[in-house]
């Protein structure tokens, strides 16, 4: 049970992070892995939508999210953040894009900054899984057409009807519950009349 590091403050990522990092094996070892990921992150920030192997896309997505969250958290006059941005973005004009375009775009975004889809696999082949990685709010047309507010779908129509019945049943239930409480108050009122007729007034305003 080792102690968490307290020197740096990190904002939480809104994507699923695997417990162990992927090695992305290559001749240069860990340094080569980071160089590979630098190229992918640079491409993602530059083209805003890229298609590549799933493993590399998933790792690069984590690093891109972390880079954008650092840029948002510390802004552009924080020296270590500038060094990190300089290391991670090979084309230096993308640093301006990061701080001037992406930071205002994701300033108040409380969901993930990137989206990743599994690319369709060609059928009879053994090649590797592909994935499409894109920044949220990119200028391209959307890849999936979500008909959310489509009322005419059969399930929506049926659910609306079910909702109506359910609400009616609930209101009916509440109505007769109130009815029951009322006639309870009435009969214990009648009981009280025989015992103490004079303090009748205080009770009536109370019950109405």
């Amino acid at each position, binding site marked *: *049970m*080792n*102690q*968490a*590091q*307290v020197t*740096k*403050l*990190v*904002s*939480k*990522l809104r994507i699923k*992070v695997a*417990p162990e*990092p992927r090695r992305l094996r290559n001749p240069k070892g*860990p*340094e080569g892995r*980071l160089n590979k990921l630098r190229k992918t992150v640079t491409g993602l920030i530059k083209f805003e939508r890229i298609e590549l192997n799933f493993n590399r896309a998933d*790792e690069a997505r*984590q*690093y891109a999210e*972390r*880079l954008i*969250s*650092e840029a*948002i*958290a510390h*802004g552009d006059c924080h020296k270590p953040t500038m*060094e*990190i941005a300089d*290391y*991670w973005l090979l084309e230096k004009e993308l640093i301006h894009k990061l701080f001037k375009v992406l930071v205002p775009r994701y*300033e*108040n975004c*409380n969901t993930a900054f990137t989206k990743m889809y599994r690319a369709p696999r060609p059928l009879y082949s053994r090649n590797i899984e592909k994935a499409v990685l894109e920044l949220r709010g990119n200028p391209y047309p959307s890849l999936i057409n979500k008909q959310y507010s489509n009322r005419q779908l059969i399930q929506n129509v049926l659910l609306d009807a079910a909702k109506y019945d359910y609400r009616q049943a609930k209101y009916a239930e509440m109505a007769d519950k109130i009815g029951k409480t009322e006639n309870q108050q009435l009969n214990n009122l009648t009981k009280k009349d025989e015992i103490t007729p004079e303090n009748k007034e205080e009770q009536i305003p109370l019950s109405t």
Partner: protein
Amino acid sequence: MALVIRKPTFDILSAAKWMIRKDCRALSSLVEKTEETEKRPVGRRARFQNPALEYRHIFPEFLPDPNPKWRNSLREKMERADMLKRRSQIDIPEFYVGSVLAVTISDPHAQGKTNRFVGICIERKGCGLRAEFTLRNVVDHQGVEIRYDLYDPTIQSIQVLRLEKRLDDKLFYLRDALPEYSTFPFDMDPEILPEGTPVPVNTVQVKLKPRPWLERWERQELKGVANIEEHLKEKDRIRRELRKTPWEKYDLMKEYRKTIPVEDQTEIWGEVHNQLNQLRLSRKKMFKKRPISTPKPQLG
């Protein structure tokens, strides 16, 4: 004629419908816009300025182990509750690696059933109830190190004799350093810092004994060691260059997997800090009348 009448009415109808739909959309969008302003979360930068985050330096063991395999919110909550119960019984002061502590434990093996040890804290590790720290001292020219559990119920008192920080967060090189840097008299009286002063950083540069050393100190970026270079041979310098990993500084995910994110931390400190404050205030009232002595310039 009918046709003619029907056509304009049709236009009016569709226009009216268009207007209504536009209004309600405008209305609804208006409504949404106002809702959105309230719902808009606090900006990300503000989340970093939360004052409770400073507690992470004073109580590092309250942050759980960041390994996702062992994370469980209920177990952490129970562990924090137990830690606070233990802290209500004994005052665990604020101390860092490099401060000089005096620990008194009830020891069944010793004659007087209590055992007091004074030493410099060279390491503080572990989280939750497993947090522990190591004290080092030179007694009769023999270096002695003792490990203590922070939340061990047999600890009677932990007293900070000198509260200070060092340039490194682990002082293992004191084992290879000259003995004068880790000798502290047992009857050393505590130096009380005036209220509210920041924790002083002792920038002493320690002198190491000649090789052979216990660890390869030249490969760790140590700031608190003076004479590493004079003990090195050429092959050590070459091997140091080979082993260097300059890219790890930029590995964002490696750093992310070692820390607890800000959102989790604010949750933890929100739950814990008022109880910790009450414990501190109650302790401060008890020690109001102590005389304030200025810290004597001491070696090491």
